[in-house]
């Protein structure tokens, strides 16, 4: 998505809230940029966070006397406090995104991004991350922390913020994605952008799957190719069945991405970016 937007001329920031940080490698950078932030590809900057470090940095920003801040970060009380305070680290991570969003934080000296993409954790943990601002408002009394949570919540509920739900066309992932879409919209009260169905097999096996090789099957290469065709065809049929189910149940625009048969991850990313760019930024029904 970042590569597609960048190719269209946008300045994009991608935030990876947890290690291991995979984005630099996927976009061709040799290693994450120094200090966890910087440009990773033309038009794409990355902010690679470690919740523990982000939390300590926040504390330093709140405590004017550096020596006290350092002593606090090392103290057992602080460590236990961070462990006890529900969602505190997650809030600080979202707070970082909010700072960039509001133009109060620059990434390696760069600001004014056209789009910020947060690569959220998988379903259960992702929901936990997104409900942190509300949890903070419920747990803490009026304080700098709740003011931070309120600002993060405003960002998440802004008209320009969307939660895209990404899934595979398989039974369990589709169930999970539909549940996530519902939770996001109804429980968390955030806008759902698209339901993106990834990894769809193209119809390459269709013609050969219906063909009977007969005695030619004795050649292991022909038998192998025929097995591959029936495998691709059966997989595609199974996926189409779940895609239909997703289409019938979702209230979000549906977007489809093909399975890219490549062992090179960067090639896969480039291919998907081209596909996303072809579908356009309007995010309309694409499959």
């Amino acid at each position: 998505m970042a590569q597609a937007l960048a190719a269209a001329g946008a300045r994009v920031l991608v935030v990876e809230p947890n290690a291991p940080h995979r984005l630099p490698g996927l976009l061709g950078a040799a290693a994450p940029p120094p200090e966890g932030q910087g440009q990773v590809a033309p038009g794409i900057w990355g902010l690679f966070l470690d919740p523990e470090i982000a939390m300590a940095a926040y504390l330093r920003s709140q405590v004017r006397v550096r020596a006290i801040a350092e002593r606090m970060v090392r103290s057992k009380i602080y460590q236990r406090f961070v462990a006890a305070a529900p969602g505190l680290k997650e809030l600080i991570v979202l707070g970082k995104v909010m700072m960039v969003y509001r133009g109060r934080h620059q990434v390696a000296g760069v600001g004014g991004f056209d789009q910020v993409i947060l690569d959220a954790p998988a379903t259960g943990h992702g929901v936990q991350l997104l409900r942190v601002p509300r949890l903070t408002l419920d747990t803490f009394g009026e304080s700098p922390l709740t003011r931070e949570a309120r600002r993060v919540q405003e960002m998440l509920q802004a008209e320009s913020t969307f939660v895209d739900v990404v899934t595979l066309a398989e039974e369990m992932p589709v169930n999970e994605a539909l549940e996530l879409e519902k939770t996001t919209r109804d429980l968390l009260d955030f806008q759902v952008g698209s339901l993106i169905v990834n990894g769809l097999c193209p119809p390459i096996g269709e013609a050969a799957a219906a063909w009977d090789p007969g005695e030619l099957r004795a050649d292991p290469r022909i038998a192998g190719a025929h097995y591959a065709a029936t495998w691709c065809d059966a997989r595609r049929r199974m996926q189409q069945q779940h895609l239909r189910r997703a289409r019938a149940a979702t209230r979000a625009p549906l977007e489809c991405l093909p399975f890219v048969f490549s062992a090179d991850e960067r090639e896969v990313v480039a291919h998907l970016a081209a596909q996303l760019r072809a579908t356009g930024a309007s995010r309309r029904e694409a499959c």
Partner: protein
Amino acid sequence: MRMERILREKRVVVCCGSGGVGKTTTAAALALRAAVDGRRTLVLTIDPAKRLANALGFDEFRHEEQLVSADLMRRAGLEPKAELRAMMLDVGGTFDAIIDRYAPSPEVRDRILQNKLYRNLSATLAGSQEYMAMEKLYDRVGEGEYDLIVLDTPPTRNALDFLDAPRRMVDFLDESVLKWFLIPYVAAGKMGLNLLRRGGEVILRTLERITGSEFIRDISDFFQAFEGMYEGFRDRAAHVVNLLEDPGTIFLLVTSPTAVAIDEAVYFYQKLREYNFAFSTFIVNRVHPSPYGDAIALDPVEAVLREKLQEEAPPAVVESLLASGRALHTLAMRDRAGLARLREAVVEEEVDYRLVPALNEDVHDLQGLAQIGGAIMREQSATSAIPPLL
């Protein structure tokens, strides 16, 4: 130790792995296999997506043990020699049950259960889900109702949370630290309080400024209510650690052959070694077979195929065969590279690898689970229609 012996002899099998690699399905498949072979088995999952329910024939998962219907098993062509039960953990509920068990009085119990901090904490404390999974495991093992318990675990992104959970719980309830939170609110004049105050006051005052006094008061209330319960909790956490180190317990790692999943599996494997937990097997799911066996280069194979098929099949069929063959072969080569990377990172020679082929349909019923179990056990009948894996 080989899988066959593990399912026959071990009492606890812990399945670890990153998200989306089929870990829950694998745990269910192993449990089903053990029950069919005659061991009374329970599979415990903490997966929030409730995935197991569909595959085991439940309309929905409940937070109690549910019996998998023997009739359903027979309809799937299985002849179970023992019962299989499955259960999903209710993390909050489990925590409540422990409070209930250790609270010295109903008043203390209610005070904790109603504490605002506790209500949020029980679901969000780092590693609390993982700890509760192990607590439940400890309970069930202690009751001795099962020959085998298969534990499905959270994704490996939380590897440390999971393995560290008992120690973290002990640390979290370290009285020497908790006292600091009580300082502002306990009666003054106790011996040693001034000394304590001098050390922690600045830190507490700063935290209070950031989070508000209400929260520090909640945290203080919470820890005060906990007084007298620490020992019970700590003992229990120590028992949980013992259970994980018990010779009757073994860890398996479930992965897929993609580079990301392999890297995470290797990371977890190294952590298991660091913690000295017994580890036996990598179960690698979704391995693609190559349609052309060991052939590495595709061009010569495709040239021969084109020539042979020229007069035997319509051009559209030939193109379809070649495109499909190329696609599956590419995946097989990617998987081969992933497996090589895994073997390279694993230092122990006696580690076992079990490969499960990528199926072209979902595993959503008992037959599918039995097929996965058969592949893990290397039964030819489970994979006879599939070209051999690497």
